């Protein structure tokens, strides 16, 4: 059990109908697991009074209905829930395997990233696909999942000039984060490959193959497999 005496947890006012819980100061799987546990319990405890919640790396934004409750009651419920959280990372999310076609054709920054890291492209692919990632947050755009953390050796800063157009499915790295672009968008992350799995499909159920707390692994596939799984190269500019 953890308790509110744990100084690293703080509850702050965010807005007129929102409180934010800070579980820690940095990216950490056990902190992220606590965020997930809190989401699940608060959903029940604040049933009928919640408007929405936004879990992120080490925080949880709780937005409530001011006509059904108030900040005093919500704060007290949150305190109670925090005292129930277990310290163990038992809230293991699902393991989701995402196919990945790594190449300089599908990932125009793969070679530059390898060169900067003093590695071969194959070594970059190996390091990226061997690691199991955690979904820390979803945001920026619908279905954009922030995955962490990549091996330090393949961490790479954002491009100095973001691209106008990154294709849907682009597998990308920024610092120690990695992600799959859910839709065509501008973007400044380093592109190393393409994933044929749709990360956000408004028509599908569920709309996203992953949720916060899930574990992700990339499985390298060939060009032919990529196309047979419905992948498209898309335009990059």
């Amino acid at each position: 059990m953890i308790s509110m005496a744990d100084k690293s947890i703080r509850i702050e006012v965010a807005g007129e109908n929102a409180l934010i819980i800070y579980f820690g100061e940095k990216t950490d799987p056990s902190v992220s697991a606590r965020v997930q546990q809190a989401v699940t319990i608060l959903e029940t405890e604040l049933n009928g009074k919640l408007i929405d919640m936004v879990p992120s790396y080490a925080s949880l934004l709780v937005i409530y209905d001011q006509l059904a409750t108030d900040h005093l009651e919500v704060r007290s419920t949150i305190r109670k829930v925090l005292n129930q959280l277990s310290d163990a990372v038992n809230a293991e999310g699902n393991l989701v395997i995402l196919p990945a076609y790594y190449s300089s054709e599908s990932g125009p920054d793969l070679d530059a990233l390898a060169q900067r890291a003093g590695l071969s492209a194959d070594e970059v692919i190996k390091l990226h696909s061997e690691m199991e990632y955690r979904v820390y947050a979803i945001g920026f755009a619908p279905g954009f999942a922030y995955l962490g953390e990549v091996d330090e050796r393949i961490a790479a800063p954002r491009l100095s000039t973001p691209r106008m157009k990154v294709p849907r499915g682009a597998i990308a790295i920024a610092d120690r984060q990695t992600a799959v672009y859910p839709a065509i968008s501008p973007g400044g992350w380093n592109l190393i490959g393409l994933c044929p799995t749709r990360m956000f499909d408004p028509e599908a159920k569920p709309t996203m193959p992953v949720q916060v707390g899930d574990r992700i692994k990339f499985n390298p596939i060939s060009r032919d497999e990529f196309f047979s799984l419905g992948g498209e190269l898309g335009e990059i500019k």
Partner: protein
Amino acid sequence: MSGFKVIQPGLLTLIQDAGRFGHHRIGLTTGGPLDSLAFKWANRLVDNPMNSTTLEISFGGLVMQAETDAQIVLAGAEMPLKINGIEQDRWHAHKIKAGDKIEVSFSTQGARAYLAVSGGFQVEHSFSSSATVTREGIGGFTGEKLQQGDYLHCNPPVDHRGFRLPDEHRPDYFDDISLRVITGYQQQAFSDYQKRLFFSSEYKVTDRADRMGYRLEGPEVKPAIDGILSEGICHGAIQIPADGQPIVLLNDRQTIGGYPKIGSMIAMDTARMAQLLPGSRISFEEISIDDAHNLHCLAHVRFNNTEPEAID
């Protein structure tokens, strides 16, 4: 089903209901009306359920042709309303006939108006809402603003009641206003001096003011930190990027972000701010969360207890 044909869409006309809630976890933002009070009045004056789909008209320029008998109302910014070329009162339900031409001209005061039709526009929901968020390509018609040639379906009930809001209850949309802010989030990263500067200075609405956020220009406010681990952003949150110029985040904001925030503006006041055009001046006033809560609840009671006059 019958409805309205869009002859001219105007600069930015969007299909909006009250907004999209409960989907932040997949990265979907709220959308919905920037001025929720004017939106609520529009629906109420044609006796609609409060979440009915309306049109949010920014700046004006909308022309439509009715292909149905219905009641319509225009509430919000001062955009002259004409039916078959004759100017009509706003905040006032009007009976229209199939064939009538409805024009909403450019605003003389304020930026957003809401056009509601009896029974509401019938637009398919996407993630439990019809609200259009163009940045996400979600809601409305394929996530786009209204286009020439679009057809707005509706199904007006017969014997629908219409109302007018007495003049003394109609909001005005003047410039040079003070907007209430609750300090919160990373407020501790702002020194007392920086906070005083923020709350005692005048800021100008820049031309980078849209449904995502209003960028303001004025004295630079500097937090002691550059960035934070990305976290959830609530409606009205005031983000201070490296240039020290505040951005008030609104309905189409991204759900998470990594800039320090000094606090959040209350929704009653983001509604007033969203009626301002670039160049308008504003200032901030600090308010406690207790006072903000009371104001919100009182505003709800006031809305429910303000009786519009029945027409006919």
